[in-house]
């Protein structure tokens, strides 16, 4: 059975316990030796997923001009979202990886085998969610869904640490039912919530979200495509160009010879 994360962003309080738990369990060093560099446009100090942040809690500060708040998630609001690798059903990183380092596990998660990765960075360019990053060791890194914990019957560290149950871990169909129920509950409160990560997003995400604003507000693409989508067309168009080159090249090479022969024949005739 496919396992994954369901993240209810409306329950997230931005405590970053998931980020800390991820760092602790996976023994990930702090970026820049722990030096904090503020972005200047958000209270979020880690800013993005990276080789050092496999979990990242996004702060989206939506403050109205008059700074009024009209109730739960109305008016001025802070949206929080604990972002992570989506462990896509059709994973662009896995598809493109030339070394076979990226595999799909028995839990349907996407895992990078560090002993096989050679740091070619194809996965970095392929991931439509900007998840995979290259670490200081020259290898690609991202969330492993705590593969080692799953193999021992434990849930991922982030889900265990989450104090509000914003992050839930379990079987995908069960989680999707929970997400649909939560969306229905929010809609009753006139909040325009929806599930991001059903089959319409690259075949489905094994880490999906309940969101209350447009995907791009959360830094997510609305309808991402696999990097490979245009590859066949690219090769076909290259084939057309190659054929045009071959024809014009051969004609140019032959034409000169023909012209010469014609010239020689004319001279002979005279």
């Amino acid at each position: 059975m496919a396992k994954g994360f369901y993240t209810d962003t409306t329950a997230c309080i931005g405590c970053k316990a998931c980020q800390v738990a991820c760092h602790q369990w996976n023994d990930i060093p702090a970026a820049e030796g722990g030096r904090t560099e503020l972005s200047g446009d958000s209270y979020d100090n880690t800013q993005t997923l990276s080789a050092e942040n496999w979990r990242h809690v996004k702060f989206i500060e939506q403050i109205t001009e008059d700074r009024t708040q009209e109730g739960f998630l109305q008016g001025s609001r802070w949206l929080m979202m604990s972002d992570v690798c989506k462990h896509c059903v059709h994973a662009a990183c896995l598809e493109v990886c030339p070394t076979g380092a990226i595999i799909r596990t028995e839990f349907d998660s996407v895992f990078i085998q560090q002993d096989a990765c050679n740091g070619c960075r194809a996965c970095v360019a392929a991931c439509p969610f900007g998840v995979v990053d290259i670490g200081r060791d020259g290898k690609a890194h991202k969330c492993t869904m705590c593969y080692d914990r799953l193999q021992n019957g434990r849930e991922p560290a982030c889900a265990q640490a989450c104090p509000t149950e914003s992050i839930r871990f379990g079987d995908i169909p069960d989680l999707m039912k929970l997400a649909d129920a939560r969306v229905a509950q929010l809609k009753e409160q006139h909040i325009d919530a929806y599930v991001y990560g059903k089959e319409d997003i690259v075949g489905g995400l094994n880490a999906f979200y309940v969101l209350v604003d447009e995907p791009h507000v959360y830094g997510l693409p609305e309808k991402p495509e696999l990097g490979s989508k245009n590859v066949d067309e690219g090769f076909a168009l290259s084939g057309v160009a190659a054929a045009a080159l071959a024809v014009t090249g051969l004609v140019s090479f032959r034409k000169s010879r023909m012209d010469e022969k014609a010239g020689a024949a004319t001279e002979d005739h005279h």
Partner: protein
Amino acid sequence: MHPALLQILAANPQSGVALPPRWGWYVILYFFLGGLAGGLLAIAAALDAVGDDRDREAVRLAHRLAFPLVLVCGALLTIDLGQPLRFWHMLIKSNRFPEPLLKPWSPISLGSWIVMVFAIIAFVEFLGTLADAPGDNAGDDVLTKWAWLAKFRRDTLVPARERVRSWPSAVHRTWQALAALAGLALAGYTGVLVTGTSRVAWHNARLMGALFLLSGASTAYALLMLLLVRRGRGAADTTVRKLGAADQWAVGFELLVLALMLISLGALGRPFWSGGFGVVFWLGVVGIGLIIPLARHWIALGPGEHGVTRAARCVLIGGFLLRVVIVMSPQYPAVPLWHL
């Protein structure tokens, strides 16, 4: 997340938000030299197939250059890896040595094999040029200077070539077709590699493979013309004229494909043609690299050899700058050029 990226996401629902893969000068050089090597091998195969004895020098030059160039390409690709000693993981399953690993749907995996096959073909052709009688070709003095090489040539290469020459012409034709195919594949796949990413401008540029392929061919034509003229073959020389005629076609197609690509990209192509890279694009790639060589008959580049060499240099400069703009601009749109 950077506000500019959020704007892109809002405007382009189909786009992804892939991080920049930090491709830099190694990749740019590889794309340029790979295109050049691929073009040289393909041109040599075509000239060999339909040319005459006077074209032999150009064929030999192309074969002498293609193999060293692909060796440089291999070195560039290797040092660009985060773990260079694991370069062989691109071709062999690291956990099931020596089982080969090929994912034909992945341009980078397919490309690794293209480089490999190309290198083997280019190596054979390179050895073939060494078997030729030492003459006034580039590097021929080495054949007589180094005793071991002269012995290897006399005892191994020359007899081997004689045997190969006795093979049916169908075999030679097939080999030429393979060499041409490998050359075109090497020149073109790098563009498709770019298309196979999730960076907005790259992903939507379906014509990038065609563009790189045409650019690889045009730069290879230019390099051959340049070298032939330098070796005393004048602008009126038959081979130089043949290459010049073919190059005009290649550059013309390149301009057409570039225009079609920009039109099809619309606003998504903005990184290529605006900002600091826009200057390089319009002046370097379009102006110097395409318009001047195409209009060389009307623009005063100088008569005879000067005109040919200047046009050829323009094509080479434009081809290199094309890779700079295509690789760098979608990754670092706001970075001043002098900081790269």
